[in-house]
């Protein structure tokens, strides 16, 4: 198990919070909530060690442009592929913008 921490530029704070996914085999849980304006933080807990470079590359693709709302993100990963990780992050943002599922 490895813990990783990332930070990116961002827009205004996100408008709500949500959780997407489950820490199931090959899946992950994304907790998404408003961050401080201009800054998105991502805390990753992953079952697979030594993939920090892949996480950095993937998250930079999503958050690098800095166009998404500022968020505080917690990712609890149980061996998801990069594609699944990206879909779960996008699902969480979509649920907040559509004002759906807020636990």
């Amino acid at each position, binding site marked *: 198990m490895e813990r990783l921490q990332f930070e990116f530029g961002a827009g205004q704070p996100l408008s709500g*919070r949500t959780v997407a996914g*489950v820490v*199931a085999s090959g899946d992950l849980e994304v*907790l998404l*909530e408003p961050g401080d304006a201009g800054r998105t933080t991502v805390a990753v*807990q992953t*079952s697979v060690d030594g993939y920090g470079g892949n996480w950095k590359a993937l998250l930079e693709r999503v958050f690098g442009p800095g166009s998404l709302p500022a968020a505080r993100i917690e990712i*609890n990963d149980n061996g998801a592929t990069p594609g699944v990780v990206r879909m779960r992050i996008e699902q969480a943002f979509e649920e907040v913008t559509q004002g759906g599922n807020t*636990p």
Partner: protein
Amino acid sequence: MTADIDPNIDRLLKRDSFIERGARSRAQALLDPGSMRELAGPFERLHSPWLAMQKLVTQADDGVVVAKGKLDGHPTVVLAIEGAYQGGSMGEIAGAKIAGALELAARDNRRGIPTRAVILFETGGVRLQEANLGLASIAEIQSAIVDLRRYQPVIGVSAGTVGCYGGMSIAAGLCTWLVLTREARLGLNGPQVIEQEAGVAEFDAKKRALIWGLTGGEQRVVTGLADACVADDTHEIRATVLRLFAQGVPARHRSERADHYLACLRQVDTRVQATPEDVRAIYNPSQGDA
């Protein structure tokens, strides 16, 4: 081209599967629309401290969703176990969330608020990594069910595909009413545990027909160890839960008819492999009715 849609495929596509839903979505689907409020939810970040020490990735709600809301207008708490996280196992926090919610529901009843509870069992039982703390929390859940069921029915549902095993199968047995699907399994020991401990001659865990034949939802209902066998359909499960709540608290709970079940158990011939038919012949629920 107008495709000929197979009516069976069409029916399956229209069905709202309960099994395919996660714990949070199951709770939401049972409660009246817009009434659900989650307690001790993921943003409280109640991660298991014990799994982290063992280098295992933790989930922010420890695999249990406590959902308060209304069910057909009645105050209800739904306790949904997430079977996909650590096999739905009960650790210290997961168990305390369920036990605490049941205890508060019983307190509500003593104060004149008729809160009911539905437990969605999807669990292999105790979380072995948390050992005695998990066992203690299951004992608390069992006590809390027995306390609450004096006031309101406590309804257990196991949809599958994990099913309900170990100490949590005892908790399911203590519920006023128990609802299973054909895909669900209910048993004290899982097939692989029996095979490992007693040998393949005793129980072959590779025989799926044997496993479902003896411990599947259909068999458990026919033998009186559960009350309703329903399709994997969200609407049917919700309607069944409402129908069972409407029956109220029975004069005697299943667990208070232990004499009947012990008498059945004494009739089992342990020298031969039991078949589902043998068990049906012995566990005739009509003999056990109060």
